C-alpha cells in the first residue's frame, strides 16, 4: 500500500460501512416489523414455519431438494449440524470461549450410546437407545468438566489449542482402543424405539424422515432451554465474561464457575447430538469424528452470527446443506466453500444474522480504525 493520503482507502472504508448500515437496516426493519405484529399473528407465523419445517421431507420443495443425495438424509444432517451449532454457540457465542475440539464431545456422546447400547460392544449391555441418551449426556458433560477444569483458567488462544488437542485425543483413543472397536468401530447400535401400527419400526434406515422429525423436535426443546438460560442470571454473567472478563471478575462474577458451566452445557448438547447421530447410523467409527468437523462447527457458528440462535442455525444449515445441494460440483465444493468463507467474513464479519449487541460492538470498532494505524 503506497497511497500516501489515505483518501481512496477512506472512501473504501466508508463504502464498507455503507454496506453494513444498509444490511443492518434491512435486518432491523424485519425485526421491527415482526415485533410490531400482534401477538396472535406472530404465534401463527411461527406455527406455520414449524409446520413447514416438519413437512419439508414430504413436500420436497423443487429448488431446495438435493438432486444427488436423499433429501431426508440431508435434512437430518442439517438438523444435526444445527443442534451441534446451538450447543457450540453456548460456548463460543454466549460465553466467548473458543472451542476447537467440540467434535470430541459429539464423539463421547456417540460412543456412549454405542458402548452401552450395542450388544456387540465390549460392555455388551445392550441398553435401549432411550436409556443410553441420558448416559451419553452425562458422560459428555463430565468430559466437559474434566477438560474445562484445568484449562478454562488459561487464556483464550491457549484454550483453542488445548481443546483442539482434546478432540484429537478422543478420536485417537477410539482408534487405538479395542474396547471402543478401534478403527473398525462399533456396529449394532440401537435405533430410537417405537413401532408403527403395522408392526414395523418407526426409526429405521428405511425411514430417515422419522430421524429428521426427532432431531427437529430435539432442536426445539434445546432452543427453548438455551433461550431461557440466555435471559437468566447465568446468561448475563456469560455476557459480562464475553465482553470483559477482568471487569466481570471485579464485579464479583465467579467467572471460572460460569465458564465451566458454559463448557459443560455446551458439552452436554454436543453429547446429545452425538447420541442422535449414533442412533441414526447404527454403527460408528472414528472417521466420523475428524478434527475437520470441529472446524466446520466453529465455522457454522461464526458464519451464521455467533451469539444469535437463529444465526447459528442458519450457519449450520448453510454449511451442512450447500455442499450436498451442489454435489454435482463434488470436486469443487470444498474449494468454493473455503473461498466463500473468506468473502462472507470480509463483507459481513458479524455473521449472516448477527447478534445485535455484537454487530454494534463491531460497528464501533470499525469507526475507530485510523488510516494506516
Amino acid at each position: 500500500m503506497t497511497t500516501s493520503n489515505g483518501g481512496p482507502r477512506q472512501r473504501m472504508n466508508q463504502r464498507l460501512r455503507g454496506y453494513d448500515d444498509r444490511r443492518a437496516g434491512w435486518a432491523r426493519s424485519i425485526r421491527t416489523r415482526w415485533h410490531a405484529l400482534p401477538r396472535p399473528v406472530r404465534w401463527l407465523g411461527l406455527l406455520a414455519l414449524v409446520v413447514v419445517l416438519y413437512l419439508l421431507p414430504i413436500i420436497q420443495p423443487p429448488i431446495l431438494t438435493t438432486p444427488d443425495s436423499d433429501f431426508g438424509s440431508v435434512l437430518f444432517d442439517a438438523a444435526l449440524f444445527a443442534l451441534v451449532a446451538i450447543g457450540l454457540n453456548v460456548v463460543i457465542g454466549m460465553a466467548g470461549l473458543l472451542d476447537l475440539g467440540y467434535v470430541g464431545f459429539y464423539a463421547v456422546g456417540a460412543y456412549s450410546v454405542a458402548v452401552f447400547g450395542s450388544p456387540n460392544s465390549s460392555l455388551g449391555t445392550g441398553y435401549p437407545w432411550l436409556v443410553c441418551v441420558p448416559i451419553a449426556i452425562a458422560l459428555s458433560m463430565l468430559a466437559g468438566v474434566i477438560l474445562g477444569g484445568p484449562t478454562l483458567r488459561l487464556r483464550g488462544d491457549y484454550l483453542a489449542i488445548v481443546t483442539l488437542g482434546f478432540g484429537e485425543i478422543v478420536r485417537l483413543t477410539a482408534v487405538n482402543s479395542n474396547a471402543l472397536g478401534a478403527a473398525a468401530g462399533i456396529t449394532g447400535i440401537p435405533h430410537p424405539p417405537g413401532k408403527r401400527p403395522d408392526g414395523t419400526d418407526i426409526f429405521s434406515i428405511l425411514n430417515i424422515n422419522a430421524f429428521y422429525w426427532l432431531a427437529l423436535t430435539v432442536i426445539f426443546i434445546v432452543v427453548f432451554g438455551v433461550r431461557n438460560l440466555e435471559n437468566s442470571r447465568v446468561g448475563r454473567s456469560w455476557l459480562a465474561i464475553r465482553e470483559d472478563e477482568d471487569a466481570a471478575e471485579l464485579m464479583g462474577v465467579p467467572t471460572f464457575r460460569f465458564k465451566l458451566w458454559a463448557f459443560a452445557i455446551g458439552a452436554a448438547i454436543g453429547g446429545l447430538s452425538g447420541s442422535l447421530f449414533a442412533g441414526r447410523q447404527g454403527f460408528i467409527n472414528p472417521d466420523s469424528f475428524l478434527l475437520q468437523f470441529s472446524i466446520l462447527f466453529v465455522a457454522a457458528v461464526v458464519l451464521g452470527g455467533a451469539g444469535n440462535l437463529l444465526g447459528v442455525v442458519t450457519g449450520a444449515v448453510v454449511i451442512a446443506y450447500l455442499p450436498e445441494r451442489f454435489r454435482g460440483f463434488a470436486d469443487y465444493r470444498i474449494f468454493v466453500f473455503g473461498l466463500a468463507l473468506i468473502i462472507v467474513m470480509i463483507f459481513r464479519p458479524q455473521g449472516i444474522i448477527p447478534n445485535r449487541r455484537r454487530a454494534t460492538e463491531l460497528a464501533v470498532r470499525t469507526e475507530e480504525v485510523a488510516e494506516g494505524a
Partner: protein
Amino acid sequence: MDFLLKNFWELTVTGLTQGSIYALVALGYTLVYGVLRLINFAHSEVFMVGTFGALFALEGMGLNANSDVTSASAAIGYLIVAALAAAAASGVTAVIVERVAYRPLRRRNAPTLVFLITAIGASLAMSEGFAIWRGRDNEAFPTVIDPKTQFKFFDASVSNLDILIFLTAIVMMFSLDTFMRRTRLGRGVRAVAQDPDSAALMGVNKNRVISLTFLLGGIMAGGAAILYGLRFGVTKYDVGFLLGVKAFTAAVLGGIGNLRGALIGGLALGLVENYGSAIVGSQWRDVVAYVTLVVVLMFRPTGILGESLGKARA
C-alpha cells in the same frame, strides 16, 4: 520402557530431526502471533505449498522419483535451487494469505474469531485447490540424498540427512534471530510486537512489518518443506494439516510469540513424541504430544520460555 532404554539414542536422533522441522514451521505461527496476536490457521497450507514448490523445482531440473543423484556437488546444487523455490513459494503464499484473508479484516478491526474463520477458509481453499489440481494421492520426491550413516552417536547411527536437517534448521533459526535483533526491519517487527502504537510513533509502517512477518514465517515454512520432502519423500494436498497442528503445539509449548521458544518447543515435542511412543506404543504418538501440551500449560501457562517477541529479547 525397555524399548525406550534400548533405543534411547536412536529415538533421540529421530526426535531431534523431526523436532527441527516442527520448529521451523512453529516459527511462522510464533511470528504472526507475536505481531498480530492471532493464530494463523492457514500456515499449514503455506507449508504444503512449499513442499510442492520444492517438488516442482526438482522435477523442473529433470529429476523424478527414480533418478539417482550420485555426485555430492550436484546434490547440493539441486537442494539449493529446491530450497529457494520452496522458500519463495511459501513466502509468497503467506504474504498473499495476509493480503486476502487478513488485511481487509484488520482495516475493520474485526474480532479475532473472524480472522480464524477466514484463515480456515483460506486453508480449505488452498488444500482443496491443490487436491483438484494435483489429485489426492501422494506424490513422490526424487531421492536427492541417499541417507548414509555418517557416524555413531552413542549407539545411534546418524545419517547425512539427519545432519543436514538439523543443521539447516539451526542455521535458518539463527539467521532469523540475528535478523530480528540486528537489522532495522527486524527491530521494526519487534517494536510492533511490543507496542504497536509506539511503533507507529517511531515511523514504523505497520502494514509493511506485517507483510514482512508473514514473509519470514513463510520462508521458514519453505525451509521446513524441503527438509520434510527429503525426510519423508512424499507430499500431497493435506500434508500440512497434521504437521501444522503439531507445529502450533510446539509453538505454544515453547511459549508462543517467542522465537527461541519455537526452537525449544519443536525439539522438545519431537523428543517427547518419540520417547513417549516408545513407552506406550507408536499408535499413541499424537496423544502423547497433546497430553504433553496440556500438562505443560497447566504448570507453565505461558509455555517453557514464556511469551512475546519482546520479553525474550528476540
